[in-house]
């Protein structure tokens, strides 16, 4: 858990690749349970979907926060873990071949001249579709930023929340903060190429895997890694280039360590992010929708799952499933204005059986 992958760099400068816009029926923001099940409901109506998610895998909160914890209130599944539910949803939607864009954050939503929407991501992906579905849960998962004054000024140049290229850290004084697997794994990986490596954690105990902790302690004993039970109080440098950091130990005594790069690993937290600037009507940072279609006040833009709000809304996965089903019916009329929606049951329709690969 909490292992940052190389393509996950929300606060770093990403190269913008200008790809050809992708044209599809529905662009879905978020690949959590609501977004995934939306693919199924849309697929039954022959609507194709592309999904964008800031995480590097499907499942949203289910796989990021509680992959191994059981969920007890999914109808028909007395107990299922976050990971199992995600795996089953992925299996269920496979016949509809959804296209995923992982490790990307949506940055813009604009109206095209022909009335369709264009959704853009920080990786340069552009999706043009008549319908956009925001299924973004509590927002984008972003790295937790330590409460160190002025840290923003160093982000991207000296402060990183992930390691993209190890070579960028060669020969540098590296400061890593945290006690989870990411902090320990990168301590072990970067120590051999660093000029110096200092690990700082608030206690002499770690939630990381024991074998990683043991290896770290061996490196400390060999003088190759410095470990302090302390917290980072201040960063020092110029123009975003870090030179040292002030740490405070358990006894509140402050001291300085050399640091050209600071990599804090405290996991992720949810922030609404650029969606807040899409011009959608928000109520307490949630998207207001009607309960017949789950469409926002902006025509063609829908919201389902935890991110939508309406009178009586309950934030449950099963609510997201219901919202996805009704959204799909409404989306059909926008995507296929000249066609008649034929409502069919999966139990009895041979036409649906063919789509599902069941016949």
């Amino acid at each position: 858990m909490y292992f940052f992958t190389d393509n996950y760099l929300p606060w770093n400068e990403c190269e913008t690749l200008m790809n050809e816009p992708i044209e599809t029926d529905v662009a879905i923001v978020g690949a959590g349970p609501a977004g995934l099940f939306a693919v199924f409901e849309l697929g039954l109506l022959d609507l194709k979907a592309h999904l964008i998610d800031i995480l590097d895998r499907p499942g949203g909160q289910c796989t990021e926060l509680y992959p191994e914890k059981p969920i007890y209130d999914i109808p028909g599944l007395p107990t299922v873990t976050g990971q199992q539910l995600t795996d089953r949803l992925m299996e269920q939607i496979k016949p509809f071949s959804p296209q995923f864009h992982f490790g990307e954050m949506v940055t813009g939503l604009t109206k095209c001249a022909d009335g369709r929407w264009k959704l853009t991501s920080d990786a340069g992906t552009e999706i043009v579709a008549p319908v956009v579905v925001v299924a973004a849960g509590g927002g984008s998962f972003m790295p937790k930023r330590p409460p160190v004054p002025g840290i923003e000024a160093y982000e991207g140049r000296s402060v990183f929340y992930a390691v993209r290229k190890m070579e960028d850290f060669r020969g540098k004084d590296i400061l890593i903060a945290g006690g989870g697997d990411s902090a320990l794994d990168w301590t072990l990986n970067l120590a051999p190429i660093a000029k110096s490596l200092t690990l700082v954690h608030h206690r002499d105990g770690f939630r990381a895997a024991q074998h990683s902790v043991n290896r770290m302690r061996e490196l400390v004993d060999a003088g190759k890694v410095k470990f302090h039970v302390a917290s980072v109080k201040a960063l020092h440098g110029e123009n975003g280039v870090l030179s040292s950091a002030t740490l405070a130990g358990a006894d509140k005594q402050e001291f300085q360590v050399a640091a050209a790069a600071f990599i804090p690993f405290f996991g992720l937290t949810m922030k609404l992010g650029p969606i807040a600037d899409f011009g959608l009507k928000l109520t307490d940072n949630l998207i207001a929708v009607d309960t017949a279609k789950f469409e926002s006040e902006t025509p063609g833009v829908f919201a389902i799952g935890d991110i939508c709000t309406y009178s009586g809304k309950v934030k449950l996965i099963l609510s997201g499933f219901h919202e996805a089903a009704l959204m799909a019916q409404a989306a059909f009329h926008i995507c296929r204005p000249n066609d008649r929606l034929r409502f069919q049951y999966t139990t009895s329709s041979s036409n649906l059986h063919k789509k599902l690969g069941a016949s």
Partner: protein
Amino acid sequence: MKIIAKDREGNEHELEGRDGWTLMEILREGGLGVAAECGGACACATCHVYLTDGWYEKLPPPSEAETDMLDMALGVEPNSRLSCQITLDESMDGIACTVAPE
């Protein structure tokens, strides 16, 4: 049962606790800005508080799972707890806490 909670701006709030509820639930309902993203599963560390006025010592110590999860919290101090892991009962009348920075 009274809960004395200080928000991030330093304002003190007196909240009514409920037997069997978690401290996180009371703080969230009281609008103290506790995110509690995982909903109380000890899986996100966004309900982090500092227990004050000697309350850290008065309560049973945190479980290993909570101690491990605190590794993902910011600004951890010796009196840090995850408020979703504190289930209130009458013996906690007057419990005092400060919401940790985001």
